[in-house]
C-alpha cells in the first residue's frame, strides 16, 4: 500500500525571504506543500479553514521574522484551530523564527497543537534544520530512501567529474532535480505529487491539459488525453508499448520537470540549478528512448552552456552511461567541438538552435509539424496518428 507523502500547510507572514526559505526546505525534505496561506490571502476565514481541513496536513508550518509577523499570522493560526483542531492525528505545529517575541506570541495561538520551535529559516542552518526535521517526520520511507539515493548519486558524480552536476529524475509520483558541486552546498528539489504515474493527474491539474497536450506530436483531443492521464494515475506502474501511451508519458515528463523548476524558482533557487556541466537523467526519464530523454532535457532545462548528458541505469541506478551532448546555440553560434576524450554518447551531439524561451505554436496545424520535427531531428520518427 502506498504511503502518502508528508503533507505540509505553510503560512508565512509576508512574501519574501522567509516564505522562499520555507518552500526551499519543504522541497529539499521531499514533503508535499498541501496548502500555502499568508495573511494577504484573499480567501475568507471560513474558506481558509476549509482549505486547511481539506489539506489534512501532517505539519502546519509558520514562519515569522519578528513579533509583528507573528501578530499577522494570528488569523491563519485561528483558521488552523477552526479547521484542524479535531483532525486525527492532529497536525504538528512548526514555528520557524529567530525572534523570542514571535515565539511568545505564537505559542498561545497554537496551544492546541504540539509545537516545535526551529531557528530562523533565512539562515542556512535554520533552513537545513527545518529540512532535516521534515524529512525525519516522513513516513514514506521508500520514497525518502530514493531521494537520498538521488542526492548521493549527484554528489558522487560531481566528485567524479569535478564539476557541477544536475540529476533530473521523474518517477510515478515525484520529480526530483538535484544539483551538486564540489565544495558547494547540495541543492535538492523533490517535488511531489508530480510525476508520470500515480501523480499524472496532478501534473494536468497544475499545468492544464493544453500545456501537456502541446508536447504530443500529433493532434489529440482533450477528452481522450484526459482519459489516458486519469487511467494512468489510477493504474500506476502499467507499462505500454503503444505510441499514444508513450507520448503521454513524454508530455507529462516535460511538464513535471517544468513545474518542479517553477517550484524551485518560487523557492528562490531556480536560476542556480541549470548552470551545470553534466546532467544525469534517472527514473522514468531514463527509461524513455535515449533520443527522447535527451530531447526532454533540451526542452525543459534552460541550458546556457554545453552539457554532457548521462543516463543512470543498473539495478541501483548508479551506473552512468553517456547519453549525448547538448550544445545550446540559440544565438545561432553553437560550438561543435568536442575534446578528444569526450564521449558523445548513445545519441550524439544535439545542437539546439531553437530560440529561448521555447515557444510552441498554439494551433495544431503549426504545433504538430514543429514538435514532430524536433522528434525527427533526434532520430525518432513520429508514427502514431491518434
Amino acid at each position: 500500500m502506498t504511503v502518502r507523502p508528508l503533507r505540509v500547510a505553510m503560512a508565512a507572514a509576508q512574501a519574501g525571504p522567509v516564505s522562499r526559505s520555507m518552500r526551499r526546505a519543504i522541497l529539499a525534505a521531499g514533503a508535499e506543500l498541501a496548502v500555502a496561506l499568508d495573511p494577504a490571502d484573499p480567501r475568507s476565514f471560513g474558506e481558509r479553514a476549509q482549505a486547511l481541513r481539506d489539506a489534512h496536513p501532517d505539519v502546519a508550518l509558520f514562519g515569522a521574522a519578528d513579533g509583528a509577523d507573528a501578530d499577522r499570522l494570528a488569523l491563519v493560526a485561528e483558521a488552523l484551530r477552526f479547521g484542524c483542531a479535531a483532525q486525527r492525528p492532529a497536525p504538528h505545529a512548526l514555528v520557524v523564527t529567530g525572534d523570542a517575541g514571535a515565539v511568545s506570541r505564537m505559542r498561545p495561538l497554537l496551544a492546541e497543537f504540539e509545537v516545535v520551535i526551529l531557528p530562523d529559516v533565512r539562515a542556512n542552518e535554520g533552513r537545513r534544520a527545518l529540512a532535516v526535521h521534515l524529512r525525519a517526520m516522513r513516513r514514506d520511507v521508500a520514497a525518502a530512501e530514493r531521494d537520498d539515493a538521488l542526492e548521493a548519486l549527484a554528489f558522487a558524480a560531481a566528485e567524479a567529474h569535478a564539476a557541477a552536476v544536475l540529476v533530473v529524475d521523474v518517477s510515478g509520483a515525484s520529480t526530483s532535480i538535484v544539483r551538486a558541486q564540489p565544495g558547494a552546498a547540495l541543492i535538492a528539489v523533490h517535488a511531489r505529487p508530480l510525476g508520470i504515474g500515480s501523480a499524472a493527474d496532478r501534473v494536468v491539474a497544475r499545468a492544464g491539459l493544453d500545456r501537456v497536450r502541446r508536447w504530443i506530436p500529433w493532434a489529440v483531443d482533450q477528452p481522450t488525453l484526459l482519459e489516458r492521464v486519469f487511467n494512468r494515475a489510477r493504474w500506476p506502474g502499467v507499462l505500454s508499448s503503444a505510441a499514444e501511451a508513450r507520448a503521454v508519458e513524454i508530455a507529462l515528463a516535460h511538464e513535471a520537470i517544468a513545474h518542479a523548476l517553477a517550484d524551485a524558482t518560487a523557492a528562490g533557487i531556480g536560476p542556480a540549478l541549470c548552470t551545470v556541466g553534466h546532467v544525469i537523467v534517472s527514473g522514468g526519464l531514463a527509461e524513455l528512448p535515449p533520443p527522447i530523454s535527451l530531447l526532454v532535457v533540451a526542452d525543459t532545462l534552460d541550458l546556457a552552456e554545453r552539457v554532457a548528458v548521462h543516463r543512470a541505469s543498473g539495478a541501483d541506478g548508479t551506473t552512468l552511461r553517456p547519453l549525448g551532448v547538448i550544445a545550446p546555440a540559440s544565438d545561432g553560434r553553437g560550438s561543435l567541438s568536442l575534446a578528444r576524450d569526450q564521449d558523445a554518447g548513445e545519441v550524439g551531439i544535439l545542437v539546439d538552435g531553437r530560440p529561448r524561451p521555447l515557444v510552441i505554436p498554439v494551433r495544431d496545424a503549426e504545433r504538430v509539424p514543429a514538435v514532430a520535427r524536433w522528434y525527427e531531428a533526434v532520430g525518432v520518427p513520429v508514427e502514431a496518428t491518434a
Partner: protein
Amino acid sequence: MTWGYGPRTVEHPLPVGAARLAPEGTVVRAGDVIASGATVTRVLVVSVARRVGVEPGDLDRVLRVRPVADVARNDILARTGRTFTRAAASPIDGRLVHITIGGDACIAPVVDDWRVRSAIDGIVARSDAAALAVEGECWALAGLAAYGPDALGVLAVAVDGPADALAPSRIDVLQKGRILVGGARAAAEAITRAHACGVSGVVVGAAPAGGLRVVYGDDLDARGLLTFDDRPTVLCLIGFGSAELPREIFDPLASFAGQRASIHVASASLFVMAPATAARLPAAGSRIALADDHASVRIVDPEAASPEALALDADR
C-alpha cells in the same frame, strides 16, 4: 476490488461549521442525518473579552452563548457586572462558530446549510467537528473514484448487460431516488439526465474523464471529489473512459437490485444494506487490464493474461 460482506467503519469527513452532530453510540440507519451545519465563509469578529473586561482565558465563564449556537442581531454574547454592566452583542443574525485565543467571537451569517447522512446502518463510533464514523455490517464494493455528494437509494439496474453503456433514454423520473447500475460507461449526458430525473447516483464501470470535467469542473482529478451541494453522484468502479464490468462484479450488483444502497464518495465505495445471504459471489476468475493506449479498461483472458493484468482482488 471485490464484493465482500462484513463489519466496516465508514468515516464521513465534515466541512467546517458543523452545528449538530449525532453523539457517539447513536444507532443510525443509512440515510439518517448524522451531522448538519452551515457553510462558513466570511465571519464578523467581535472583541468580546475586551468589551466585557475579562481575560481571554476567563471568557468561558461569562459567555451567554457557545459555539456553535445561532444568534440573532443584538443578542448578548457575554456580559459582566450587575450595576454597571458590560456586554458584547452580536451585530448580525448568524451563528457563533468560533472563539479565538484572544477572546474574540467569530460570527458567520448562515447562508447555506449542509447535511451529512449515514452511508450504512450502524452505530456512531466517532463524533467530532472533523468527522463522524459509523460502524456496521453490510456488503461493500470498493471502486476507483467517486464524485459528488454521498448518495442513498434503492439499487436498480439500468442496462441489459455489463458491457452496455448507460443510455439517457433508459433514465426517467420513475427512477427518482434510486442508485442506477450503469454497465461499462456513463457519459455526461446520462449523468446529468439522471440527476435531473432525481436519481440519487450512478454506479458504472467507467465514466469519460472529459464528461466528468463538464459536470464537476476543470479542477477535477482522478482521485474523486466529495461535495456537499446538489450535484450528481457517480462511482467509477474500474477506470475512466469505458470499462466492461466483470461478471464477478456485475452479477451481485444485479442480484442486489431492490436493496437499499449508498455511494460513499470519500472512500469511493458502494455499500448495500442486504443480509449476508442475499448474494452468492462467483469465484473471482477474471483479470482486468488497462488497454494499450490507456484509454479504457478491458477484461483479459485469464490464460493469456500478462503481468500487467490485475486480478480482481488485487491490492491496488
